[in-house]
């Protein structure tokens, strides 16, 4: 039942055409990606370059002073491999000017500011480069709410949001992403030594198997436990999914009129195209 492997060729083909379709129908031909040096943005970049042509993809590297030095190098490896356009815009100054106002600021607040500063840079380049921002959040992190709202989650379209992290890894291998990017531990790189799996308290491999049963196959919690997952782990994952529902929804609008945006004024974004 835990059948996570995907047909990479088929998925690649769908996602490339998805990017092309959604960008061109919105009236654009170019895309911007915040290239972190990690696997998710690397995969999104390869797909975008194939869909739009390398000259139409702008990868931005947005380091903060505590970012791991190899993040920049790994991003550069991919920029060179794909021959896409690139920019490097450090955010230390803009982020620090806010952080310095609050001397006792928590790590989480600082991390959120960095993620949102990167969003500002990406959206500024969206206007400057006349392209749309491509999201790089995967299904695992979206479900677990392991994102910064209006930060790294902000985008115009997201090609990889229905792929679990382990499926992104599989796709990365098949897309010939540099091995060093595939092999390194996933990290939001918001502070030194941060890794996703240490912060979350479990591995992607393990949680993806559980999510696959819970979400894709609609298993009851008891059935997941029967399938071999610890009760505490199952419950903690279910709690996380529920707690972060707000990160996956548009803000509710209080209904006053006879027709309200989002509840009974309903159109697909692609309407008319």
């Amino acid at each position: 039942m835990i059948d996570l492997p995907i047909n990479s060729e088929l998925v690649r083909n769908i996602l490339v055409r998805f990017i092309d379709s959604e960008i061109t129908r919105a009236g654009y031909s170019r895309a911007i990606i915040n290239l972190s040096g990690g696997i998710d943005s690397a995969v999104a970049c390869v797909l975008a370059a194939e869909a739009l042509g390398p000259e139409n993809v702008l990868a931005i590297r947005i380091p903060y002073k505590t970012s791991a030095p190899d993040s920049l190098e790994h991003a550069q490896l991919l920029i060179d491999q794909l021959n896409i356009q690139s920019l490097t815009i450090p955010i230390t100054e803009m982020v620090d000017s806010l952080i310095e106002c609050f001397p006792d600021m928590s790590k989480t607040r600082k991390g959120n500011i960095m993620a949102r500063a990167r969003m500002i840079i990406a959206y500024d380049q969206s206007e400057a480069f006349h392209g749309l921002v491509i999201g790089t959040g995967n299904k695992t992190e979206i479900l677990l709410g392991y994102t910064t709202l209006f930060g790294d989650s902000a985008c115009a379209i997201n090609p990889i949001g229905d792929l679990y992290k382990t499926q992104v890894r599989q796709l990365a291998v098949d897309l010939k992403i540099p091995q060093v990017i595939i092999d390194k531990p996933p990290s939001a790189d918001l502070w030194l030594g941060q890794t996703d799996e240490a912060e979350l308290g479990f591995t992607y491999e393990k949680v993806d198997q559980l999510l696959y049963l819970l979400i894709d196959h609609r298993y009851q919690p008891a059935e997941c436990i029967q399938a071999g997952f610890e009760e505490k782990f199952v419950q903690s994952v279910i709690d996380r999914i529920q707690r972060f529902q707000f990160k996956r929804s548009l803000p509710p609008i209080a209904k006053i009129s006879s027709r309200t945006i989002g509840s009974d004024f309903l159109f697909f974004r692609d309407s008319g195209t």
Partner: protein
Amino acid sequence: MSINIALAQINTRLGDLSSNLDRHLTIANEACQNGADLLVFPELSLTGYSLQDLVPQVAIRPSKEDPVFKHLLQASLEIDMVVGFVEEDARHRFYIAAGYLSKGEITHIHRKVHLPTYGIFDEKRFLAAGDTFRAFDTRFGRVGLLICEDFWHISSPYLLWQDGADIFLLHSASPGRGITDKHIGSADWVETINRAYAGLFTAFFAHSNRVGFEDGLYFWGGATLFDPDGKLMAMGPYDLEAITYAEMDLNQLRRTRTRLPLLRDERPELVLHELGRILKHD
């Protein structure tokens, strides 16, 4: 008797009747040039699928005067065709409809009976359901039309079969989902059941499914034609716009049914009797 069928797996512009109409006319012309007698477009081919609040804006009261239908009917002088659209009735109910057009006339309109309203589908929220399955005569023989979800209910083709349909024309806007390490799960299922129906009803079973994207939804194409032996006669590519041509040798109906008289031996009166008993118990 043989007929040449063309299955047009096209992309559509969502809510843009005039652009979709142009595409229909271009394809009708092309299919005609290539010798096709019958052309099947996908579900909602004139409007696109995920209409939501666009439904009333694109709804049509089909007639010879209607600005969209008059062009299609004109084209049908050269080639029979099945088109997908939103039909508005006299009392302003909106249906997903399939129209069979031939020789300048609307031969038949089928209103989708089974409206999926689960998972990614939300049809009942915006649309009314049809309430009949009727086979009808064409210049090629008796035909039954099915629209997408109709096909998932075995009673739909069964009723058409009993009403005399020898040629089943199914059209869909089927979103791809359930991709594993092999294939698109939804496509596998649809193909398997198309083949099963062709074999079970010893009839021709054609499927025309659209391609393209609407927001995140992806339509996979892959038109198929199965003959009364359940043999795959033609298949369109996945994902790409294409017109798939195939020849239907209607004599195959006789050959297959002589060998395998499932139609002769079917017991519809038994079905009726038993269903009467079963429903009374409710």
